[in-house]
């Protein structure tokens, strides 16, 4: 009841609509009438809220969607049938109409409501599904609008509950409803419910920035409880080409294109052209190709960076962390702060060379592996600073889980790091021996490869040991890991829900163990590799004294049981 009261406190409600009319500031001060139109239920008793449908504009989107999904098979079918030149072609039109009608079904069959204690969703035509999620199990609410949705001022809502696999998706309700729904779903989190602030969801597609700066300032300054943590700085764009995550996507695209290209006559033309060109100097061709590829990569990566992180804002508001970004598709991810169990700073090898890093939050119930990417590639100092602010340390001056030096694991761990890095060269040695013995191949290329592998292994072992380490601050367990990529994971000690102490046969001989803290957040485990066994147990005990107390061989101090 008290939160329902907070929800409708008059000075705050109007702000909720302000995003919808970004250019009319008076809307914020005037009592909102839009509010009453879009969500009159908030005045009534929560339990009596009626079932609601998706936005009626879904009737437009649905057919377009099903058309998009079926575009390729449809085109193939049409071409195939028209080529066969038979009466079967007459089937195509009714079939298409049927498909379009299919897209309408979700609107007719989906309805949702929130009661005082839970969120309910009914959907399905043949297999009726009635989904109920208790409000106190809802950890995150994401709003996402693709270009199409933004044109119609609609938003897709994804609700994360405790179990990562089942995210509840509401495909397209109006922006106002979405914001209202999110407020209601996350309302019970904090005592005073400030209205949400997601103007980014709206905004004309032609100029997503028009009017933005004004709102941004207003938003940050007018609301004392919304603390900005980070805003995009376009000088960070310099890190884009050094982040290879996007390369995978580009590679996939290229592969698909080339596959498509194989079927086209274009390939033959290119082939002939290529033969003519390769008559020219080979070095020139190589240089031009390299240069072209490099330029293409720089442009592509920067373009992708801009599209993905446009107008990025990271704020702390209403007991939640909210990330808003995107040029074409705007995403607004809101994760309750209580659900954020830690952060991970990663420095992929190329990014590390130029002093960049990425930041992700480990949270429960957010889907996609429990990691929420929070900052794009950015300067390492920014990632560390923002990361520590997200951790919300009680004493930020005393404990610095992300920037304090890690405790190294000692000589045995160093030996193992070097040895482990030689596994590839050992395998190669066996394989090459068999190969050279059984075939007539010369031995020296295999030896050269072996030398390269051994050299690379030495480098990797050195780097792996340097990245290895652990730290326990009053609130966080910190693990350093990675071979060439350096990762530092800080996990809230309260988020540890169990321990695994694992020793392989080799580790046992070296007196080492891998300590794994299991957790519900992120990748569900934080591993600290190759700790001396006694140190591992001591570390686990210091982190969660209660859990280990009954099983300790020596109970040193009565304080340990506390």
């Amino acid at each position: 009841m008290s939160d329902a009261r907070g929800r409708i406190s008059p000075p705050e409600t109007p702000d909720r609509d302000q995003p919808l009319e970004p250019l009319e500031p008076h809307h914020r001060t005037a009592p909102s009438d839009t509010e009453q139109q879009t969500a009159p239920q908030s005045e009534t008793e929560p339990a009596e809220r009626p079932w609601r449908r998706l936005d009626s504009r879904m009737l437009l989107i649905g057919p377009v969607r099903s058309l998009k999904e079926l575009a390729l098979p449809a085109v193939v079918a049409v071409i195939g049938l028209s080529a066969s030149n038979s009466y079967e072609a007459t089937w195509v039109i009714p079939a298409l109409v049927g498909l379009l009608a299919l897209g309408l079904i979700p609107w007719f069959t989906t309805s949702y409501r929130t009661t005082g204690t839970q969120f309910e969703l009914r959907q399905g035509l043949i297999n009726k599904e009635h989904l109920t999620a208790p409000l106190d199990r809802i950890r995150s609410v994401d709003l996402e609008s693709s270009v199409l949705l933004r044109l119609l001022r609609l938003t897709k809502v994804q609700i994360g509950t405790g179990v990562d696999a089942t995210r509840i998706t509401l495909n397209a309700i109006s922006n106002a409803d979405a914001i209202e729904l999110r407020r209601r779903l996350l309302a019970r989190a904090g005592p005073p419910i400030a209205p949400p602030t997601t103007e980014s969801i709206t905004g004309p597609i032609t100029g997503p920035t028009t009017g933005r700066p004004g709102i941004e300032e207003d938003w940050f300054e007018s609301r004392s409880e919304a603390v900005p943590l980070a805003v995009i700085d376009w000088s960070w764009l310099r890190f884009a080409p050094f982040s290879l995550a996007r390369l995978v996507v580009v590679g996939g695209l290229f592969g698909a294109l080339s596959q498509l290209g194989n079927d086209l006559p274009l390939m033959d033309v290119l082939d002939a052209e290529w033969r003519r060109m390769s008559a020219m100097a080979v070095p020139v061709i190589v240089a031009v190709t390299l240069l072209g590829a490099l330029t293409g990569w720089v442009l592509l990566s920067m373009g992708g960076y801009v599209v993905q992180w446009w107008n990025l804002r990271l704020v702390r508001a209403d007991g939640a962390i909210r990330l808003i970004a995107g040029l074409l598709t705007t995403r607004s991810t809101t994760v309750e702060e209580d659900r954020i169990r830690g952060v991970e700073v990663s420095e992929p090898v190329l990014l590390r060379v130029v002093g960049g890093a990425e930041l992700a939050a480990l949270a429960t119930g957010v889907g996609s592996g429990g990691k929420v990417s929070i900052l794009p590639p950015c300067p390492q100092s920014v990632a560390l600073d923002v990361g520590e602010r997200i951790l919300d340390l009680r004493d930020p001056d005393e404990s610095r889980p992300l920037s304090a030096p890690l405790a190294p694991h000692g000589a045995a761990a160093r030996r193992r790091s070097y040895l482990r890095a030689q596994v590839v060269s050992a395998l190669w040695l066996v394989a090459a021996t068999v190969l050279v013995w059984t075939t007539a191949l010369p031995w020296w290329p295999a030896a050269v490869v072996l030398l390269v592998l051994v050299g690379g292994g030495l480098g990797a072992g050195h780097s792996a040991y340097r990245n290895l380490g652990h730290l326990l601050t009053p609130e966080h367990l910190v693990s350093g890991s990675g071979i060439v990529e350096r990762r530092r994971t800080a996990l809230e000690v309260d988020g540890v829900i169990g321990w695994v102490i694992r020793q392989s046969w080799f580790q046992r001989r070296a007196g080492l163990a891998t300590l794994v803290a299991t957790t519900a957040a992120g990748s569900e485990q934080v591993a600290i590799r190759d700790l001396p066994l006694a140190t591992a147990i001591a570390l686990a005990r210091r982190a969660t004294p209660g859990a280990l107390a009954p099983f300790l061989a020596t109970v040193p101090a009565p304080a340990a049981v506390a």
Partner: protein
Amino acid sequence: MRTPESDEVPVALREPAHQVSPRAVGYWRTSEAISTAAVVVFLSGVIAATFAIGALERFRPWVLLGSGLLLVFQIAELIWMPQIRFRIHRWEITPTAIHTRSGWLGREERIAPLSRVQTVDSAQGILMRQFRLATITVTTASAAGPIEIACLDEETARRTVADLTEYVGRATGDAT
């Protein structure tokens, strides 16, 4: 509370109190024998292929070597693994936490406070039933954290599940 010097105090975990059922040795040996038989069948197939197909003939010594090593490992496992495993596998449940140890070459100890436990399952495979054994699996909210007590005596397993359910029922919160 956590104090800096407590890091220096040498601490060790003691052995969990209980062993698994002695019938587990028979069960492990039987299942190991079955898998060894499968390996033998597979290897004889491969070796037969090197005799039947001329192109593969020059690989024959290597295949024989590899098969021999694999077979030796399998047989060693068949002979020693069940006993070693029986010595290592131990478990203990207190009203507040669960502790297990498992493995035979490597070793794995798992500890979880019961307040974080979400489900308690017990399962019995077809071969396990012949040996009147059951396995208890305790899951937490982490996919990395299921704790398995393999090869308990049926009766013990039933009692343990009842105990666990009672302890877990006392805890509150959503265990994440």
